[in-house]
């Protein structure tokens, strides 16, 4: 059986999936998986939040160092907790 493969961050779409997975997209209205329209401001804020958390220059743009950081191996837990599927996980 084929295993899931690593999400390679290469552009806005994959970056938004990453930001959503790790808790930076804080509203269902900005969820890239449900087809809802994304406001430019919400996307920029999510990128800014990630850059701040990762200690990068806070440009709000998906620049090279931001993409490189998103592609680094990491823990699968969320950075920002409080919403999303991860918080509903149960042990058994």
């Amino acid at each position: 059986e084929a295993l899931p493969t690593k999400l390679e961050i290469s552009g806005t779409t994959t970056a938004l999936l990453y930001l959503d997975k790790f808790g930076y997209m804080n509203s269902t209205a900005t969820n890239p998986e449900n087809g809802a329209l994304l406001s430019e401001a919400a996307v920029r804020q999510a990128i800014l939040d990630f850059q701040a958390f990762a200690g990068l220059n806070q440009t709000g743009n998906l620049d090279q160092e931001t993409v490189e950081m998103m592609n680094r191996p990491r823990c699968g837990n969320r950075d920002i907790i409080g919403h999303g599927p991860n918080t509903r996980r149960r042990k058994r």
Partner: protein
Amino acid sequence: YALQGSRWRVRDLTYQISKYPTGLKASDVDEEVANAFKVWEDVSNLTFRPTTTGKVHIDIRFEKGEHGDGDPFDGRGGTLAHAYFPIYGGDAHFDDTEQWTIDSFAGTNLFQVAAHEFGHSLGLSHSDVRSALMAPFYRGYERNFELDDDDTRAIQALYGKRESPSQSTPSRVPTAATTRRPSTGAGTAGVLCSDASVDTIVTMADKNTYVFKGSQYWLLTDSSTAPGYPRSTTADWGGLPGNLDAAFTWSNGKTYFLKGSEYWRFSNMTMDPGYPKPISKGFAGIPDNVDSAFVWSGNGKIYFFKNDKYWRFEPTARPPVGAKYPKDVSNWEGIPNNIDAALQYSNGFTYFFKDGMYWRFNDRTFRIDTADPPFPRPAGYWWFGCE
């Protein structure tokens, strides 16, 4: 630091490894997991005890892909592991498709990732302090691991400071090999034995180490050079010229070669499209015609050496070379000026080569290692299989 909001009511916690990884011995995994728990035990009022029977607080499993919790692993790279906060049970899951390693710069260090995940198991969220263990990004193997003050404050906020000395095993001592084996004299070094000076030496992402000299190159074995070498650099490396200046492999797995004012980037032995490029474009602030370059294990940054100066290059910084550079090579105590080559070898040590001799640098004392026989040693005998 950040606390998730739940914690264990008891201070004496039990754990079990219910599913071991496929790539490591179970006894080694037991030891690394115990070491990882001890990181937290040393600074908090917690104890951890392994058990194989009954109900445990923290269950540890190595799994592939979807493994029953709706949060599938994604293969090598990407997500390495995840763990549940105390209110969700405290279990820790590790991606079994990762190359888990112990005391090695290759693969992914099990001890460091386990210590991070157990932080979640105890109630800690991710920290935005980059040096913290609880920062979410894997930083690569750190031979001299130390818990950050940020982590210590976090765990003590939940469980208090240690009230009595830790009862478990002593602090871990790295077991990685510290000395390159002397050669057996059975190699294929040839010209390297008549003159052991080299142009550059580099260890690739696949851990193969190559020596380049003039128009030829050799593959190194543990104590010599491999059969079938030397071979032509230009023929085997996609037109890469001879008489190279420097080479290094960065954390992106790419290997870079420098000569004159140009550099080439390789994925394994295949040149990436669009190369060569000017050093002034790819490595702004670094001069042409460098002597050598290497990535230092102490901080993952790239160091370029030329004559009696060196430059530190940090790709993600702007500018990538700080205003304090270049600095004097004499800051690296015991390293001569005008070195021929430098590399970080697979045992984690950084080696410098000049005029057929080599030095081993100790990044704990920040000077050349004291050893018997002392450094510098003849590279021909110790590296290339020469009598």
